[in-house]
């Protein structure tokens, strides 16, 4: 029987790496289902090689992104929120399916995610004033301290909150001038892939954010021990593996954000500055005063 209804064009869900959308070099995919177990998509299953490529892309992007003016970074990130808003319905559908939420609750989560992104976009040009200082040293010197981004940050994104949680861990990393390699929620990766499409069309330079769909348990150890990763956020690490990842991270003295005690937090709460502080260094500069 021939239906008159239009057959939809389905999306291929891929990685977002270095500003492009490749499949996993390994050729692997895995089945993503909705909360009830119905098929949604085959997502790319990122490999160790993909993770290492993502680190290379993030390192290459760090120089320009970290040196961009705070005003410029703020505008680019605000643009991300604008484009997210245009994809609102798509995000709602994906969040509702993946997290098993009602339409109303999915909409609330997407609203909060976009607003969170706006909140962080507004931070870029305030951080130096709030976290920096002029230091009254006991001598004829001008002495000041400024926050600077740590570098390449690996982020194991939350497993449950697929968009609001993701934005809540990613935005603070890039707002403060770092570049990111993110391992998305394993079971709920689709909103992350869509966010990648948003980033690709929002003037965020390629490589600043790299999104790997796959398994944090598989990719976590490689990112934790990688010498060119400066920091790691273990929020989405399997709880029983977090200690092992933290030990691996010690090899290159990485900054480590431990998984929150008591599991995934309420992402709607006021995020405070903790996440941005964790991925910022303080540089202090001295210069003599004299005639």
């Amino acid at each position: 029987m021939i239906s008159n209804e239009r057959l939809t064009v389905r999306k291929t869900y891929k990685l977002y790496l270095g500003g492009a959308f490749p499949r996993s070099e390994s050729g692997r995919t895995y089945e993503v289902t909705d909360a009830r177990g119905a098929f949604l998509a085959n997502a790319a299953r990122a490999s160790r090689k993909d993770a290492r490529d993502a680190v290379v892309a993030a390192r290459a992007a760090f120089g320009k992104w970290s040196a961009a003016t705070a005003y410029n970074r703020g505008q680019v990130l605000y643009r991300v929120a604008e484009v997210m808003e245009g994809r609102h319905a798509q995000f709602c559908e994906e969040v509702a399916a993946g997290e098993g939420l009602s339409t109303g609750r999915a909409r609330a989560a997407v609203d909060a995610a976009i607003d969170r992104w706006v909140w962080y976009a507004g931070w870029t040009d305030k951080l130096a004033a709030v976290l920096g200082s002029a230091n009254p040293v006991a001598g004829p010197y001008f002495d000041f301290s400024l926050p600077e981004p740590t570098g390449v940050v690996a982020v194991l994104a939350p497993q449950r909150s697929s968009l609001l949680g993701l934005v809540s861990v990613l935005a603070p990393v890039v707002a403060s001038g770092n570049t990111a390699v993110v391992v998305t929620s394993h079971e709920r990766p689709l909103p992350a892939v869509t966010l990648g499409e948003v980033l690709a069309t929002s003037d965020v330079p390629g490589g600043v954010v790299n999104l790997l769909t796959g398994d944090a348990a598989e990719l976590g150890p490689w990112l934790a021990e990688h010498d060119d990763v400066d920091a790691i956020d273990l929020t989405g690490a399997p709880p029983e593996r977090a200690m092992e990842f933290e030990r691996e991270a010690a090899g290159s003295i990485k900054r480590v954000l431990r998984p929150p005690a008591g599991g995934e937090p309420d992402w709607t709460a006021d995020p405070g500055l903790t996440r941005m502080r964790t991925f910022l260094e303080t540089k202090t500069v001295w210069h003599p005063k004299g005639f």
Partner: protein
Amino acid sequence: MAVFEYAPAPESRSIVDIAPSYGLFVDGEFVDGSGEPMKTVNPATEEVLSEVAVGTEADVDRAVKAARRAFTRVWGPMRPADRGKYLFRIARLLQERAREFAVLESLDNGKPIRESRDVDVPLAAAHFFYHAGWADKLAHAGLGPDPRPLGVAGQVIPWNFPLLMLAWKIAPALATGNTVVLKPAETTPLTALLFAEVCRQADLPPGVVNIVTGAGETGRAVVEHADVDKVAFTGSTEVGRSIARAVAGTRKKLTLELGGKAANIVFDDAPIDQAVEGIVQGIFFNQGHVCCAGSRLLVQENVHDEVIAALQRRIGTLRVGDPLDKNTDIGAINSAEQLARIRELSDVGEAEGATRWQPACELPDRGFWFPPTVFTDVSPAHRIARDEVFGPVLSVLTFRTPDEAVAKANNTTYGLSAGIWSEKGSRILAIADRLRAGVVWANTFNQFDPTSPFGGYKQSGYGREGGRHGLAAYLMGADSE
């Protein structure tokens, strides 16, 4: 070409009264340690100064229990203003007994009295004075409205600035309402034990400060104790790594201040005489036993010969010898072990093809000594350009353009400090922006102040000491990570 010879100008050591043996300072009392006691020697003479207790796991446990008790019953509940007053008392006591501390420090560590008297001890007092004022103002530190102490801090410090590192650790910990168990370095325990006496003179409640002497095993016991909430360590990157591994999976908060291999960049427009003073201050201060020492001199190629000639002339006037002589510029290497490492790396430098230069200088027969040393023809791949020597050894490299200077300066796993010498302000600020280092000294070097945050990028560690930033390491609350 000295016109006048220097007459000896020794500082009297009669001001210090070193006991033949010391116990651990736990819960306000000196108690015996359970380990085999160790000897601490004067590195300038190899004379044994005293015998010092060694804390075992059981001793550390007693100290942590005392600290916990003091935190819960006394120091935690105390009015913040009163905590501040205790710290003000300690600052004043350090000032009153400054000369005693300076002489003792030079005896135990080998550093020149000029430095212990003018740098270590005054800065230690300043750290207590500065942090005293914070104790009742923490809500205004930008760390959230109600920052709270962590509890018991376990602190392990190195031998290069024994009293000053103690102050960097204890002052912020106490000001923020924590209590501490501190392990001084194996080779330099004496000023920490004299500090214990200062705590008693200040009537500091028992258990607020506990000092457990010993070597690596004692430090490990402090770091790994289950009831320690905070670990703060200054020392080598290698030990820092093992500490980060040890606290993984716990809720302990960690700060690490580790090694460095700082670039000191001299541009061709720099005032050469001032730059030479800065280079000397950068690498020979404290015998080069400084984690932020300017151990890699990056000099613009067209002024290389001029800078090196001026530098060698200046080094020729440095006086190496008796740490207690007020004219001494370079004192003794802290230990036989450290001397062996400096010798080994210097030999590797020569073997790899760099050119060693040392001034003619007479070294004392006894004690641990190494002359100020400059290596030229150093390539970035040489070990003396990569490894931290932690001694009076300077490696000289060259560059042509600012971009090359930045690339070479950042070509290290460390990121603690850096120096820039130039008359051009815009260049200084642009280079400072691009250096991946926690402290950048422009037209100066090795300046420290309690108001000024200090700490590293990359494998030089994390967390800051000093300033508003340093308080975050000892507090919990919404915004204190």
